[in-house]
């Protein structure tokens, strides 16, 4: 008897294997401290980037956004994350671009948006060209060509939580016309 219970939750608990967006809070020696929204900041070694060596350090500043995954995540220990997959490739992880907007949503919405056949994402993609990164810790980074478009996208995604499919379609069709 194993139960999967999906619920409304905003507070993130680190889980191994999750891809998250973190904010670098400190650089100390060989590791970065990255805030992921959990109870403790995660540690990220500077070698855990693609192509990083002792001489060739990655260009990461305090306050940058990092997309990575957890390799160690227990509820009693500080989690550890890396920006590299098991083969040593970045596959999209690493420092996220400089512009764009980061905002927070509930965990349930992220899981819904990341489901394999999510219509919301497809419709959003048809609206404007955009870059988007979802972190399982409830953070979404989005970037479109203009600030106005980015703000519209952020507001739509936040509102998707509370809208029915019909309302969403209405809103998208209105936006597509204007």
């Amino acid at each position, binding site marked *: 008897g194993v139960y999967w219970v999906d619920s409304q939750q905003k507070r993130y608990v680190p889980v191994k294997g999750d891809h998250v967006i973190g904010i670098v809070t400190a650089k100390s020696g060989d590791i970065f401290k990255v805030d992921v929204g959990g109870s403790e900041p995660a540690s990220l070694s500077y070698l855990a980037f693609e192509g990083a060596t002792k001489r060739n350090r990655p260009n990461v*500043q305090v306050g940058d956004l990092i997309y990575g995954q957890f390799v160690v995540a227990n509820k009693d220990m500080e989690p550890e994350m890396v920006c590299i997959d098991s083969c040593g490739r970045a596959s999209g992880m690493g420092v996220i671009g400089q512009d764009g907007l980061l905002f927070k949503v509930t965990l349930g919405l992220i899981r*819904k948006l990341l489901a394999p056949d999510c219509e919301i994402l497809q419709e959003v993609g048809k609206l404007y060209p955009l870059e988007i990164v979802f972190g399982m810790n409830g953070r979404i980074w989005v970037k479109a060509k203009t600030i106005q478009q980015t703000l519209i996208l952020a507001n739509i995604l936040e509102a998707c939580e509370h809208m029915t*499919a019909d309302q969403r379609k209405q809103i998208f069709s209105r936006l597509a016309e204007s």
Partner: protein
Amino acid sequence: MKETPLSNCERRFLLRAIEEKKRLDGRQTYDYRNIKISFGTDYGCCIVELGKTRVLGQVSCELVSPKLNRATEGILFFNLELSQMAAPAFEPGRQSDLLVKLNRLLERCLRNSKCIDTESLCVVAGEKVWQIRVDLHLLNHDGNIIDAASIAAIVALCHFRRPDVSVQGDEVTLYTPEERDPVPLSIHHMPICVSFAFFQQGTYLLVDPNEREERVMDGLLVIAMNKHREICTIQSSGGIMLLKDQVLRCSKIAGVKVLEITELIQKALENDRKVRKEGGKYGFAESIASQRITAFKMEKAPIDTSDVEEKAEEIIAEAEPPLEVVSNPVLWTPGTAQIGEGVENSWGDLEDSEKEEEDEDGTDEAIILDSIKMDTGVEVSNIGSQDAPIVLSDSEEEEMIILEPDKNPKKIRTQTISAKQEAPSKKPVRKRKKKRAAN
């Protein structure tokens, strides 16, 4: 908890957006967020919501001896508290700077402006005066605490009724609310704070900053004004240099805003007075629509649950009838029972166990209650009652279970319903349920 740091990306974006006169929630530069005022059942209790920022205000009174150098005046006492539920960064020891600043500003705004007639609070000169105490609690922090708090304070004071008192010679009679109607306080005017946030060394200005905007602002100007365009308090913090005409412009904007807010307050007070007089229901419970979660939510969105019913009925029709109710837990020792099987330790094995889940028989589907509007909730519980043995409940002490230790433990099966048509597979969260055995 430490505050979530502000990333460079967000800061840059916010500043650029402000330069282009765009705010995160689509407001204009001089727009306030929605203000909602609701009253409790007692006089003097109110909750003010400024967007998502929520402040609870409560006024109470007591008969005390007056201060020695002010023998004919009542005493006013203001207190603002930043509750820990308002923001993760508010911890009992750690809020002092912000707290002191806000309290001081509120005091100056309300006490020094003499908005309340303290002479009228005197009962017996030199011996008994009323002490009016205003307690404000910040329930949620989404920026601009000071405005919300000042509105809550003045609304609570206007709403409050103190017990009636009569003095005959030396005798002071304090009437209970049943004997004589309580008396409102004597309030001369309503000072309201308006906050202006400045960015880029005073080049750009926003009214009513929300939490994100407050993080990136350079300085804050607070003007407390009443509807007669009298400035009660003005304070500039953050160390930015403001030009004379900027301050004058802000005061003009504040005048307009205060008029609107005062109208709103009057309307809310009037509504509440009407409801109480007509004997209708009032109080916080009434102002929150029933069958909704009281979480912050977007404006009403009706949920279309017609397809849910069909899908649910389909699932129920196709499913096997559920097994007997959990009635035979395994008793290990007195006081320790087990219902169902425990789960093996899968520390580090998340991917494998995910696959195991796929193989379980089809009737075990994950519950996805994306928006728990009670409409859907009611559907779920209705469907639940058709399907008698749904055992899941939050109460640990629901049933008296008589334990017989030699029967086999049965697995708990539950019918679950997917509330949306979208594909249900998500990142699953494992839950173990153990019912405490009643002895």
